[in-house]
């Protein structure tokens, strides 16, 4: 894909001797981030929005009173331009254009043909192209799975099934589990100063217990979300927040309850043969 197929046509050059105020007004009016600076019919530099900002009076209330507001208006383009002209040819690839803009940190680049600036390619246009290219791509498979981890064999099945499904696409897996409740007395007997630390340790312990269900080795990226209750709601919330492609549970009642409410498919992890 060549630059000429995606550029906005129009002159984007300015003479080096032109007043900066006129160039600044034009950039604002036409939404241009960069102008090609010409002298004697050839490009000698570029004027970027950042160059214009650097000579503009400070807008900060404590610094603005010390500015000379019309000073910048007395400048010419050559006084503030950067002396490196950068442009694209119409036959350059959009790939090169995207890379050059990313490297230079500019939002647009002029296109020059036979010594004349004939158009501009902007980051705005390229972001639109990116969005449409991404829309055209076939679904990339499963990227994120949320697992409702019940206690016992149902939880084991859900974790194992999710990991099997995640592996081929290197999908991420989030395990949502209910932390085992601690007796109220156990919490109340802990001195207040140590309570947070003890509760954090309990949390780590519970997290480790969930992670212990994940076999070591080639497991995909696994995160654990612990909740104190209401696992069903927590699974739905995690699936929505993470934009999950699939929810996996091991208990049929849980699967039925979630099926109508999750924005993505809900899979019931199957029982092993003979179970």
């Amino acid at each position, binding site marked *: *894909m060549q630059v000429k197929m995606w550029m906005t046509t129009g002159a984007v050059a300015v003479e080096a001797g032109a007043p900066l105020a006129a160039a600044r007004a034009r950039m604002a009016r036409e939404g241009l981030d960069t102008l090609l600076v010409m002298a004697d019919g050839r490009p000698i530099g570029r004027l970027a929005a*950042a160059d214009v*900002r*650097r*000579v*503009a*009076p*400070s*807008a*900060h209330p*404590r*610094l603005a009173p*010390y*500015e*000379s507001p019309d*000073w*910048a208006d007395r400048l010419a383009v050559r006084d503030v331009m950067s002396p490196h002209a950068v442009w694209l040819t119409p036959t350059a*690839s*959009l*790939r090169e254009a*995207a*890379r050059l*803009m*990313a*490297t230079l*940190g500019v*939002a647009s680049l002029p296109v020059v043909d036979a010594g004349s600036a004939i158009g501009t390619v902007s*980051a*705005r246009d*390229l*972001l*639109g*192209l*990116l*969005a*449409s*290219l*991404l*829309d055209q*791509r076939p679904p*990339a498979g499963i*990227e*994120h799975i949320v697992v409702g981890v019940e206690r016992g064999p149902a939880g084991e099945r859900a974790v194992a099934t999710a990991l099997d499904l995640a592996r081929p696409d290197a999908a*991420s897996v989030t395990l949502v589990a209910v932390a085992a409740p601690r007796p109220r007395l156990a919490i109340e007997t802990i001195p207040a100063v140590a309570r947070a630390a003890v509760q954090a340790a309990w949390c780590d312990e519970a997290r480790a217990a969930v992670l212990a269900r994940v076999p070591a080795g080639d497991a995909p990226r696994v995160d654990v979300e612990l909740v104190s209750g209401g696992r069903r709601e927590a699974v739905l919330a995690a699936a929505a*927040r*993470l*934009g*999950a492609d699939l929810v996996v549970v091991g208990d049929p009642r849980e699967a039925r309850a979630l099926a109508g409410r999750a924005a993505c498919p809900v899979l019931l992890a199957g029982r092993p043969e003979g179970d």
Partner: protein
Amino acid sequence: MRVRDHMTRAFVAVAPHASLGEVARAMSDHGVRHLLILRGNQLVGLLTDRELDAARPSPATSLTVGEIQAALARARAEEVMIRDVVTVAPGTPLAAAARLMRDWQLTALPVLQEGAPVGLLTDATLLGVLGALLEDQAEGAASRRGAPSAGVSSRRR
């Protein structure tokens, strides 16, 4: 493709009361154009090189170098930061993030998970993704034409 696949997790953050001198130093030390402004773990603003440039004095200021430094040390990030920050989640599709950036003319989107920042997606990153996609397409087209794939892949390196 989701935001989480391409966001940078190594973002730079400062407190709202950081001085503009500290902001400028953080940007130049880390070579970044965007700073997240955090109060605790909560995102309260975004500061880009544009806001910093707009606050800095021009060469025509009547202040001396010392006075400029003192003024920048007194000016706070929260006085010039963008307060209404457009954010995305790690699970946001990348196409949606690209459209947000295009439509709102943004150069970066902070990535929030449960209200806390976990990454940053910049326009430069998205342009890099576009470059890679177009490269894949070109390689696909070349291999369909029977061109030697070794020549194409050597360009990649």
